[in-house]
């Protein structure tokens, strides 16, 4: 069936089977491979994208169910050359090792900060609790999101000294 999904601000119309999963639609049809595909069983959370602003596991959403909704993927986080503070935070705080969980983690961080600009450590840990980091680098992921909270986008780019630890 023919569907139109708004992805990263643009409408994309494709012919898909109803059983086509959103993660495959993004990766295979739109070639947005920043969204990773992991366990396929809604456990690992590496396929998290934002649907109408909230994190969802795209391996457990049908593409046809996303029709008419707004999907945001990691490709949309940066504004041109200007990284999102969450992306910058992952650089500053060494928030990734292998990078497999990173797109989903960053989107969850973005959605959390959009709702709650100053989350506690516990709130960050709860927000990412549906996503696995196979390198077990959770501490630095939390620090990365904390860094982003301290360095908001409106702060005119990066304000904190690179490599600072808190």
């Amino acid at each position, binding site marked *: *069936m023919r569907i139109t999904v708004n992805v990263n601000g643009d409408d994309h119309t494709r012919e898909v089977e109803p*059983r086509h999963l959103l993660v495959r639609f993004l990766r295979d049809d739109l070639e947005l491979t920043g969204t990773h595909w992991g366990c396929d*069983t*809604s*456990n690992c959370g590496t396929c*998290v994208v934002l649907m109408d602003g909230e994190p969802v596991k795209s391996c*457990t959403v049908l593409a046809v*169910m996303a029709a008419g909704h707004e999907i945001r993927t990691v490709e949309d986080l940066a504004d041109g050359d200007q990284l999102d503070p969450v992306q910058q935070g992952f650089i500053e705080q060494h928030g990734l090792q292998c990078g497999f969980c990173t797109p989903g983690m960053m989107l969850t961080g973005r959605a959390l900060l959009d709702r709650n600009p100053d989350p506690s450590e516990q709130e960050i840990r709860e927000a990412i*609790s549906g996503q696995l980091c196979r390198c077990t680098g959770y501490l630095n992921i939390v620090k990365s999101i904390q860094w982003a909270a301290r360095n908001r986008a409106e702060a005119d780019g990066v304000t904190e000294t690179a490599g600072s630890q808190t």
Partner: protein
Amino acid sequence: MQVPASFDYQRAESVDEALELLRRYGEEARVVAGGHSLLPMMKLRLAAPEVLVDINDLHELDHIVLVGDELRVGALTRHRTLLESELVGRYFPIVHDAEKVIADPPVRNRGTIGGSLCQADPSEDLSAVCGALHAHAVIRGAGGERIVSMADFHQGPYETAVGVGEMLTEVRLPVLPGAGSAYEKVERKAGDWAVAAAGVALTLREGRIADAGVGLAAVGAGALNLHAVQTLLNGSEPSEALYEEAGRVASDSCSPVTDGRGSAEYKRHLAGELTRRALRRAVARAGRPIGSTAREA
């Protein structure tokens, strides 16, 4: 790659249209809302409906409203909405206890109370919660609405009272004066299914327990509403001795099986211990003014 078998997809624009589609396609149609129980089963080919009727646009089924002495929760209400509802937390702390440990945030953004109950998995948390609360389910079909108790709603593992051409539209939770409730769950890791879990709801009247409801999850079928424990509790004064006995009866009344999450013996132990813990907290909450539980740590 896990892909469901082929099916047709219909997005309903009204409850009446959804019912019409369900009637037209009969046994082969399934309602999909969050899809976080159904789609994994379809990927594993444990379920292979020929038609999915998507009800995500039926916003009239997404509501939490106090009507008289009932809290009416639309079937499409997401887990996240339940967890963030002040009204739910005020009257039914058991629901917030459970929602905090149901799957994880991205899953709770999609999953719904209606989907949880209709899946009727004996390990599912809200089924035990609604069993303990003596909730009622509103089922709509061609002939109108019918209201069934949770005891009648759950007919066995993966079986409910919702018939062909019908759908669950609302869950009604009774608001009782002097009520307290709590849910206790042991899970292997964040977001997992319960190894075992216990829900308790009750009221205190002149120092004695009344309206007791006890529901267990993940310890076999038929534990969503434990009559033996409820009978023991009703009319009794709260005491550690009573909790001990209630735990023992709960433990004896369930039928867990050994699996990857634990041995039957361990789960039976948990059924008793978690019943005792939930009972203690429910009684403590029943003794407080409405709303004070929201400030608990």
